[in-house]
């Protein structure tokens, strides 16, 4: 009895192999008929194609080289003027930027390293697009804050900073962050220390409200990166990236023709 299924199985296996057999034989015959050099040519070209594909994939998936420093901030905080001062030292009148501007910058250090300085527009409707475009190439971000009207804008500043810090690409690459408190030439400007404290308080609140915000209509939730340590109040020292607060004035205290007080900023940029 047991042998019957065995015989049946064998018969079945034979039957299955049999339809393939004539095809295999035909294939073997065709291959043997061909010129061996032709066969070798086909094999080599296939190999080249495979190697190219693998190579391209490797190149494209590599992290893009980070060689840019981004100037970000709210509208009217002085990014474009700072850009002009850093690159050429001159004072230029500026208007609201509509697109980004970029130029190579030579840092003032012994190594003479140079990287690209990119000035992004600060207007609310353009900000997300341009940050999206340049965030992967950033090795450092200079966040420019208008110190004179900071009190009124503190929630907007904090929201943008929160958006930057919780971005997935940024939290992966960990570019260093320099917060430049601009417009120090105005008498009512707040100091960097005060701005830091206020921002920490705001970010603390934002952690709660932003995580409770509604998810988008196609189901994608907001940023799931939690800033700082859970359970403790937020402090900038808890962040994985290097954060530095400094004061500067792009316009300069001596008016338009004088020098700008950006020495501390240049020093920090040199350390990058």
């Amino acid at each position: 009895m047991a042998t019957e299924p065995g015989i049946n199985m064998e018969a079945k296996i034979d039957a299955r192999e049999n339809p393939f057999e004539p095809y295999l034989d035909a294939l073997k015959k065709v291959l043997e008929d061909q010129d061996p050099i032709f066969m070798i040519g086909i094999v080599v070209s296939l190999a080249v194609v495979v190697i190219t594909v693998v190579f391209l994939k490797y190149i494209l998936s590599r992290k893009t080289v980070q060689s840019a420093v981004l100037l970000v901030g709210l509208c009217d905080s002085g990014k474009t003027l700072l850009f002009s001062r850093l690159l050429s030292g001159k004072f230029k009148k500026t208007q609201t930027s509509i697109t980004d501007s970029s130029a190579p910058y030579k840092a003032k250090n012994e190594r003479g390293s140079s990287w690209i300085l990119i000035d992004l527009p600060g207007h609310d409707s353009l900000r997300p697009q341009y940050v999206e475009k340049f965030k992967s190439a950033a090795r450092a971000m200079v966040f420019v804050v208008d110190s004179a009207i900071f009190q009124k804008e503190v929630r907007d500043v904090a929201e943008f900073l929160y958006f930057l810090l919780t971005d997935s690409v940024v939290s992966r690459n960990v570019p260093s962050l320099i917060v430049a408190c601009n417009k120090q030439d105005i008498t009512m400007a707040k100091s960097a220390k005060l701005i830091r404290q206020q921002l920490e308080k705001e970010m603390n609140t934002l952690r709660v409200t932003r995580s409770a915000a509604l998810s988008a209509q196609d189901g994608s939730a907001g940023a799931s990166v939690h800033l700082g340590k859970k359970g403790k109040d937020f402090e900038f020292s808890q962040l994985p990236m290097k954060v530095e607060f400094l004061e500067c004035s792009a316009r300069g205290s001596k008016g338009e023709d004088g020098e700008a007080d950006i020495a501390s900023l240049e020093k920090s940029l040199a350390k990058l």
Partner: protein
Amino acid sequence: MLDFFTIFSKGGIVLWCFQGTGVTESFTGPVNALIRSVILQERSGNNSYSHDALSLKYKLDNEFELVFVVGFQKILTLTYVDKFIDDVQLHFRDRYKNELEQKGALALLNSHFAFEDDFKMLLREAEESSKARGPTSMRSFNASLKSQKTVKSMIETKGGDKGKEQGGKKNKNAKKEAPAAEPVKGEKAKASTSAQKTEENGNQGLTQEEIIQKKREEFIRKRMGAPVEKPSKSPKPVKEKPKGKEKRVWTLGGSSTKELDYSQSNGNGAHAAGDQGLDAQADPGMQLSSMKGDLLAVDYESSEGEEEEEEEEEEDAVERVVVADTSKKIPKKGAFGGMFGMLKGLVGSKSLSQEDMEPVLDKMRDHLIAKNVAAEIASQLCDSVAKKLEGKVMGTFTTVASTVKGALQDSLVQILQPKRRVDILRDVLEARSQRRPFVITFCGVNGVGKSTNLAKISFWLIENGFTVLIAACDTFRAGAVEQLRTHQRRLNSLHPPQDHGGRPIVQLYEKGYGKDAAGIAMEAIAYARNQAFDVVLVDTAGRMQDNTPLMTALAKLIAVNMPDLVLFVGEALVGNEAVDQLVKFNQALADHSMSDKPRLIDGIVLTKFDTIDDKVGAAISMTYITGQPIVFVGTGQTYNDLRSLNARAVVGALMKA
């Protein structure tokens, strides 16, 4: 006469500026306002903008990423400005081509653009050319076609002198003599200035007579039909005519002048129409009994139906005109040229021109309209994208279609991005720290989902630990208050008071039906302040935007109570109607507010989003018209169906084929 002229790069650096004599104010403010409201909101189809007392005209140079802006006082009407900007642009580009072509901003920063002299020269030329033209005057008689005709005919006829003799008899002729005399004087004056007309001076008197003859003819013909006292004199000039020249045969005129007299039939027709109107007015009194029995067919709604049809026809005509205008330029490429054009377009740098973009833009416009974007907004958007791309140099291997699509996608995402921070929870916390309730008002037309979404938003707020007071200011619709009471009970059962310190987390403030909504809202806010509620949600009755008394009532409610957030609730199914609704709502709020800064719509709630698959155009229409962000998106009827807007996803769905 210009106040200022600036040339700046799109990256924000001012390359050159000019400030008119005596102008002390800085122009940065107005130009920034221009950038924010026009260029960034994609309204650059129309190239002028007014800010306070200044009128600004601008031009984008997309090849070198420059913007040219000129500003002058609004009360002056300068005719040379458009051409002047074009001239300046061309001049500037030619002169500084080298610096502008370099990539990167260093060249712009380091070079100094000494454009003063060129600018002054161009300005002088423009001003002189506009002065030289002077006010357009009527064509002189000699310059018109009539003079050329009559000279020829004068050589043949001999009856011109008699026409002049009969000139003094009739009043009409006296009037014609007077205006005839004036052009004669005018011509004499001009003849002294321009040498061309001296040769025609000799013919003046005769040509004038010809005109008088012809006009007399027409006058007589008209008079013949009506019973007038002068039959004897009138036929004379008519009979004398055939001797002098051939009788001109008018195809539509007919041989007898009686056919040309429409006076009787006109009067009769008018009378008939008037009688019909009277009858129609007498009819409404009889219609009470006409509803008995079977219903009448649609044709019988006579006057109303006709009026509606006429209105629809006018609208169709307007739409047709708009469509014809937008699609008037059809590219006339032959098949062969088209193939080469395609190849040329792929390789090498080619700058985009209006004709290249036309077909692609038309297709994109139709695509947007098919996706439920309002028609006029789709065309404005396409114009704005065309302005932004004109003259831009494309890279290799990029087609016109891909460039235009990319630019359109960018501008759509830009429109949907909120222009201010949208974080309701943070603002509620801020209001709580100031010990006052955060007031949100919902307004919209009938049936869009105000009460449903109000319940969803209150659920979201109580989930985050805020106490909510619902103010039932819909005192008109039957069952509105009961609906809100049911929601309140359900929400309280989901979050029982025991969890929140013994106090019900949602309460309803209502005063029944028929009362004044603004008064109820004011009392509700005062009650919330006393009882330390965090949020007050004010539900109003739905109203059509054309209903003036209701719009006034809504404006009064908002002006009196000054809510923190005025949300317009609109459904995603709406099409072109969205534009009309939002414009009229905003208009009503602006008109009936007493203060200088009226409270307008602050945000939009887009409801019934689950009913549209990818026809998401209503979102674009609404944000484009108001410039305000979409704060909430309603995707269903349960409490959990509340979302925020993801701009990229919506634009992706919109651009999908």
